[in-house]
């Protein structure tokens, strides 16, 4: 496949799109916040399965009759599986057992699938750790890219990553999807993936800047994007293939994970084309920026 798409002609439009998505995401995060899953919010979650389709209103009545008021009862995966979440401020670790006991009393065929209890301080610790981890990962990647390429690339790469992460977080906030530990893991995997793309594109831009003289930066960037486009598309495609396999066949427990990654791969592919290139042009990258010697190339040349 050979492409010759004038990507950079649309860079203003892309910037506007990215910025408005970012503004919406940040606004939603600020106003609505994230719908934290159990891992971060603390509380008790219990999943049971019935022989037949479960009567949710009956389960709700049971909960109310046993003195619970702040809870959610929903189907999980199939209509015979029920997930009950209890927001519990005091961190009572007995709730799961208590609830399962009266559910089983009401219907002896009830089968326990899982109970999760996360105390309030663990939840807030995980929140802090997760946020910190994200920043540490971004910081270390910034350093690595700055060390291997040049600070303008590093800024571009980290902007692209922040862009991807914020938009995914924004979507999770807008649609109030559950944000739990597996989604956080997916976000870090997205960072890794999106960076893959970014580095491939940056690598090519660097190579073309070094090899060809007398072209406008915009032209070189555009050519580089086209040269790497078929690879970008194929890799995104194979990754999406496996992610959809996970989404449809991997079960309910990692659906949030695959969902976040699918969005991440799509946004990441877009950002590696537009965000990085845009940043480089906005920082007015020049031929001189590339003129640093490339010691690593020499070392690796005789490798296969």
């Amino acid at each position, binding site marked *: 496949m050979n492409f010759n798409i004038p990507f950079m002609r649309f860079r203003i439009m892309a910037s506007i799109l990215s910025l408005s998505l970012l503004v919406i995401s940040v606004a939603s995060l600020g106003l609505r916040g994230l719908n934290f899953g159990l891992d971060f919010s603390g509380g008790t979650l219990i999943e049971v399965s019935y022989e037949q389709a479960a009567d949710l209103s009956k389960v709700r009545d049971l909960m109310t009759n046993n003195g619970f008021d702040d809870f959610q009862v929903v189907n999980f995966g199939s209509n015979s599986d029920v997930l009950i979440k209890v927001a519990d401020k005091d961190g009572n670790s007995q709730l*799961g057992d208590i609830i399962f006991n009266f559910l089983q009393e009401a219907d002896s065929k009830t089968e326990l699938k899982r109970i999760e209890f996360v105390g309030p301080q663990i939840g807030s610790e995980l929140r802090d750790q997760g946020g910190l981890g994200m920043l540490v990962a971004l910081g270390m990647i910034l350093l690595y890219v700055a060390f291997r390429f040049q600070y303008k690339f590093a800024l571009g790469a980290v902007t692209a990553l922040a862009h991807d992460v914020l938009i995914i977080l924004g979507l999770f906030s807008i649609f109030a999807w559950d944000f739990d530990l597996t989604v956080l893991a997916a976000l870090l995997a997205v960072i*890794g993936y999106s960076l893959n793309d970014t580095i491939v594109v940056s690598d090519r831009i660097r190579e073309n800047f070094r090899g060809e003289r007398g072209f406008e930066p915009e032209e070189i960037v555009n050519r580089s994007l086209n040269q790497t486009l078929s690879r970008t598309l194929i890799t995104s495609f194979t990754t999406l293939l496996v992610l959809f396999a996970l989404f449809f066949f991997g079960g309910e427990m990692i659906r949030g994970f695959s969902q976040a990654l699918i969005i991440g791969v799509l946004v990441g592919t877009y950002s590696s084309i537009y965000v990085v290139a845009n940043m480089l042009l906005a920082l007015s990258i020049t031929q001189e920026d590339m003129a640093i010697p490339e010691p690593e190339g020499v070392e690796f040349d005789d490798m296969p």
Partner: protein
Amino acid sequence: MNRFSFWKYGLILFVLGIGIIYSLPNLYPSKPAIQVAYTDSGKSADQSLLNQVNEILNSNQILSESTGLKENNIVAKFNSFEDQLAAKAALQKKLLDEVIVALNLEPSTPQWLRDIGAGPLKLGLDLSGGVHFLLEVDIENALDNRLESLLNEYRKKFRDKRINVESSKKDDQDIVFSFISDEDYSKALKIISEDNVTATGALLYDLKPNAIRNLVQLAFSKQAIKELRDYAVGQNLMTLRNRVNELGVSEPIVQRQGSSRIVVELPGVQDTTAAKKIIGKTANLEFRLEASSTTSRLRKEEFWFQDERNGSADLEKNIIVSGDRVTNAKSGFDESGFAQVNITLDMQGGRAMQKATNGNIGRRLGVLFVEQKNKSVLSLDENGNEVIKQSSYIEKKIISIATVQAVLGTAFRITGVGSPQEASELALLLRAGALAAPMKFVEERTVGPSLGKENIELGIQSIIIGLLSVVAFMLFYYRWFGLAANFALLANVVLITGFMSLLGATLTLPGIAGIVLTIGMAVDANVLIFSRIREEFKAGLDPQTAINEGFSRAFVTIFDANVTTLIASLVLYTIGTGPIKGFAITLSIGILTSMFTAILGTRAIVNLMYGNKNIQELRV
């Protein structure tokens, strides 16, 4: 051009061989098995128990595949789950509470694989089913108790030395004494300074003497708090291990996490309520006076000694102090070199002890060890079948009885406890009975066995579907080169499994997701290489040079791209817990193995296909 030297093929085959051998154990299904251990954790299983087990199995005509000694247990493997359950029932009926019988799955790895240390992947709780608890040791509470009893110790010491204390109080984390005369102040300061050393020789207190106002302010030093925390957590860890032992779970994990938390993982446990009860229970101590000859029969009870050879003794029904008031117990020696146990109570305990012993000097004081135990009894159900019924009961036994020689307070000692070893055992019991510091559950995750099984099935299903669709796409899009990439991809999956088994890493559901993701992303390296080869070929290079250039030019890009993903997954490993760590591990291993297979492996196959041949056309 494009030929590999012999050693490169050798290296690839060698690594692949290791991967295959170490992933082999995963193909052998695990066998239902039972583990038999003595209830008394001090006794380890021996030949006589093995003989007994074999005899019982034979007499009940239960066919076992193998029985043998493994660490402290007898392990018997069976060919069916029915046999496994029948064996458990038969053994329990015969041996009742003498042994703990646990059901588990034993890998059926052949001997030659076991000899080289190969074994199947460990499954995380989300795949095997089981319980995960995180307990937090309440150090604040322990510290508070310590400070309280310290205050009382000094009040008593100062009184004994006739030092006039104007006021003494505990103020949050500090103790403050004030004195009227300079002389009292310096005497008291000297006494405190003499004690100011921990077991490891560091300073015990942060001392703030104020000579102008005759004030002494002291708080535990950072080092002392750390030592206290380590002591409390270590103590609780030991107590928990003993309790978990009672549950008869195979391969339990009881581990310290961070500064003051303890993780307990019990794979395969189904009755979580019972597990929680046992883990959270507090074995206890009771201090009671020995009944005198005049004590009415209604107010005394007879108890056996822990060591039944010593017979029994009558104690009063009135409990002076129970074990949760014990803040510390240490063994040591008295003035004439006999072993003794020094006990420290908290303030409330000290007061009660003082009241009870005042006027009872010369009588004997008994220490009772109280434990909740389970008992199995054979009985007949309504159909006349023999069934084993579990009932819990409380057992109280005397661990020590000694004469009261003075009015006792927060700190006292028990002498005449026998050998130094017996003294240290008594101290251990006193400490272990009551936990060194209270604990609470801060996290619990229970996965039912059916969900675990379901997760494995779904995980494997998505690996297969993901793998097949990528393989089909690569073959369709890249033809021969795609075939090479597909071999590399398969080799990658084998290597991930092999290395994870070799490293003893745990597979979790997110870990499976990590493998699936790796499958999708691993072909990226090949896509990069192939695109590059095509480009070089189109630019006018001859096929052989194009292949060579494609591989070497793509390498730097692949390397950079993978290192950054590796950074992200290492960060994930450090912040993640259980299942998420599993994801980070598979992702990291996947990145490393995929670099190996996608670069070296694919190159080897491409070289075999095209190397050293005179080709004009390249279909990439």
